[in-house]
């Protein structure tokens, strides 16, 4: 098979948040990274006296945790303030991202409408670093919904 072409990197990715599943605010200018944990299907295994290998069982899919790394700023309407309020009030907060940027037909992955922030929204850093301050937002969602940008 010939080597594939057209592979995209993350350099032009886009990230958005929403507090109502309708209006999405672009936060690509804050965001420096996206990572995901969870969501993998639960599996089980058992062994019998006879065989040498496991018998496998495949179960449900647990929730997904989507984490973004965002620049820390202190404006009243900035991402930090919005996220901190949503985390404290336990209100809806969704994230979505597009690895290729979100032009027409490019894939978009969104957290479900009942997503909430589950981590402490606070900037962290060390005295020996001159890097800009960042903070993390971790959103827990029942699934990541894949769609295409229009």
């Amino acid at each position, binding site marked *: 098979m010939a080597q594939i072409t057209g592979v995209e990197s993350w350099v032009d990715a886009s990230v958005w948040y929403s507090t109502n599943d*309708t209006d999405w605010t672009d936060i690509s200018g804050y965001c420096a990274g996206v990572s995901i944990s969870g969501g993998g299907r639960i599996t089980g295994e058992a062994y019998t006296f006879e065989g040498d290998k496991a018998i496998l069982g495949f179960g449900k899919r647990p929730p997904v945790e989507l984490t973004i790394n965002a620049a820390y700023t202190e404006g009243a309407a900035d991402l930090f303030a919005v996220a901190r309020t949503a985390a404290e009030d336990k209100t809806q907060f969704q994230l*979505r991202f597009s690895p290729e940027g979100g032009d*027409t*037909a490019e894939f*978009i992955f*969104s957290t479900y409408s009942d997503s909430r922030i589950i981590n402490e929204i606070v900037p962290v850093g060390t005295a020996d670093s001159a890097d800009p301050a960042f903070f993390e937002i971790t959103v827990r969602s029942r699934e990541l*919904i*894949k*769609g*295409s*940008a*229009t």
Partner: protein
Amino acid sequence: MKLYRVLDRLECRPPFLKGHIGTLLKLKERSRQILEEKGRIAQIHAPPLAILPGWRYRARRLRKKTGIDSAEGLLMADVDKLAERLQLSSSIVGQWQDDVRNWLTVAHNRRQSWHRLRE
């Protein structure tokens, strides 16, 4: 006017779910072209209504009273105007559209759409 089947969830307000059938006029023409090129939507070329099982009588009546003889024509028509010309209730004509939409929806997608609706 073209009729499309949505092959991947389309993010807009509200989103078009996988399996949806419609004209997608809410989207710009250029967007529809790109989505079709990239395989996110596909144009539907539906058969004449008269050959769908159980549609012979309805197809004849539709053709006689409204000139519509294709699934695309029926789905794109305004329900109320159609009902008036057919001297039927809008709910019956809406049901006809749903029947045809079901005929055009792949079973796999139909099941997925149903799951989404149930949520």
